[in-house]
């Protein structure tokens, strides 16, 4: 618990990070840049879990545990997605979302 900072302000920060990530996901046209925006969204979700655990249920520990799970799932997702992207780049020599159509076999 931070001295003098209410839960509302921290939730405001995580909301703003979430929607910045959403904006990046809407506007980016490169696959790796879109994946980066997903990382922002996942981070804001993990921050939300931790903050609500700390401020509303300080006796419990579930929020921290699920934050760790979110980080593990994000690591797995990033490794798989980057493997797919590199493979796709070998096939099409491009990472732009409107040029990639080889998955339509």
């Amino acid at each position, binding site marked *: 618990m931070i001295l003098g900072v209410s839960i509302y302000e*921290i939730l405001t920060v995580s909301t703003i990070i979430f*929607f*910045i990530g959403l*904006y990046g996901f809407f506007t980016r046209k*490169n696959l790796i840049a879109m994946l980066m925006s997903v990382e922002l969204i996942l981070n804001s979700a*993990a921050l939300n879990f931790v903050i609500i655990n700390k401020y509303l249920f300080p006796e419990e520990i579930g929020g921290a545990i699920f934050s760790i799970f979110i980080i*593990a799932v994000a690591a797995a997702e*990033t490794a*798989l997605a980057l493997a797919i992207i*590199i493979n796709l780049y070998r096939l099409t020599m491009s990472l732009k979302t409107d040029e990639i159509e080889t998955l339509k076999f």
Partner: protein
Amino acid sequence: MERIIFYIISLLIIVFAVMAVSNRNLMRSIIYLLFVLIGIAGIYFIIEFYFLGAVQLTVYAGGIIILYVNSIMLVEKINTPLDLAKFWKRLLAGAITFVGTFLTLIAIWSYNFKTVGVEKDTSIREIGNALLGYGDKGYILPFEVISILLLAAMVGAIVIAKTKKDTKYKEQN
């Protein structure tokens, strides 16, 4: 004091997040993303989840960013700027996210959270006991599921990245 540090960190996080999604150089925007992740680790440290902050620093700032940097160096020429979306599309996305932020903030600030004023540190021993416990507050089933998921992701990444050599790249050269 903690309050001022929190405000500085959150300002830095928001500024670097905006720069990360709007910069046209992919390598620079990945470095801005690194700053955002370090700032979130700083928030974890301020609210005294030390283990979570350490995990954030090692896995995200240490592992995932390096993975991104390596794959960017593999696939793109670093100096080519990214394509921008059309202007009206950016405007539409900005409007949608702005309205969404506004509505969510209204919903948050109008809800009455019943905060408990108990100060309690979460030690690493407690997290370990919870992860391996099978009692009331035990999380051993999700722990095992996540280990299977990590193994499957590792095998899958190797299988996907290892392909035959007859690609367009070879034809072009």
